């Protein structure tokens, strides 16, 4: 079965600093989704990547999928307190047929003002 490993597990950064979160898959990724979760709330969709080498940006967040489609990174530039939360990578389940997702354990981001 497919597994997603995220690193680091947690991250504390000073406001204004850049940071990167990684997501590594045990199998080729056919769709990689980044979500943000605030404590006690739902998952907010950020970005989706499908093609090897693909890169997408939204505001100060950039996500990339490597050429081999087994690793993705999420980069935040000039972090702000509003970026704090848990970032989850999700992938289409390798064996699933209806698009169900498997998730990594998440990376907890804290931004100190």
């Amino acid at each position, binding site marked *: 079965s497919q597994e997603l490993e995220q690193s680091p597990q947690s991250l504390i950064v000073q406001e204004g600093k850049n940071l990167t979160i990684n997501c590594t898959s045990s199998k080729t990724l056919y*769709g990689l989704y980044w979500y943000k979760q605030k404590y006690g709330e*739902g998952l907010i*969709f950020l970005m989706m990547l499908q093609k090897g080498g693909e890169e997408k940006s939204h505001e100060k967040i950039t996500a990339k999928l490597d050429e081999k489609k087994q690793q993705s990174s999420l980069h935040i530039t000039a972090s702000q307190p509003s970026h704090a939360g848990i970032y989850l990578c999700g992938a289409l389940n390798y064996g699933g047929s209806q*698009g169900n997702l498997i998730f990594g*354990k998440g990376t907890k981001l804290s931004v100190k003002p």
Partner: protein
Amino acid sequence: EPEVTQTPSHQVTQMGQEVILRCVPISNHLYFYWYRQILGQKVEFLVSFYNNEISEKSEIFDDQFSVERPDGSNFTLKIRSTKLEDSAMYFCASKGDRGSNQPQHFGDGTRLSIL
């Protein structure tokens, strides 16, 4: 922006009791999902639903679980006889079509506490 809504936000139930978690997916979406997240663990897939029937389910989704779309808007998850280990956050999600380039949109979840 349209969103997935879930009720209640928190449900406390005695072990052995039945519980129904409710979801209103985004109105023009066709694919519906339930996931759960036990405290400190990964978000796990439970079941997917399309065209008024279950299309896929995980090992977690045993005979104690059932899903229903009783009308054109609600999508429910029923746990027939709750166990302590059912305590978790339950998320409903919906997607517009089968295409892999469509993201799933999640609700804020129902926190289920079994006593």
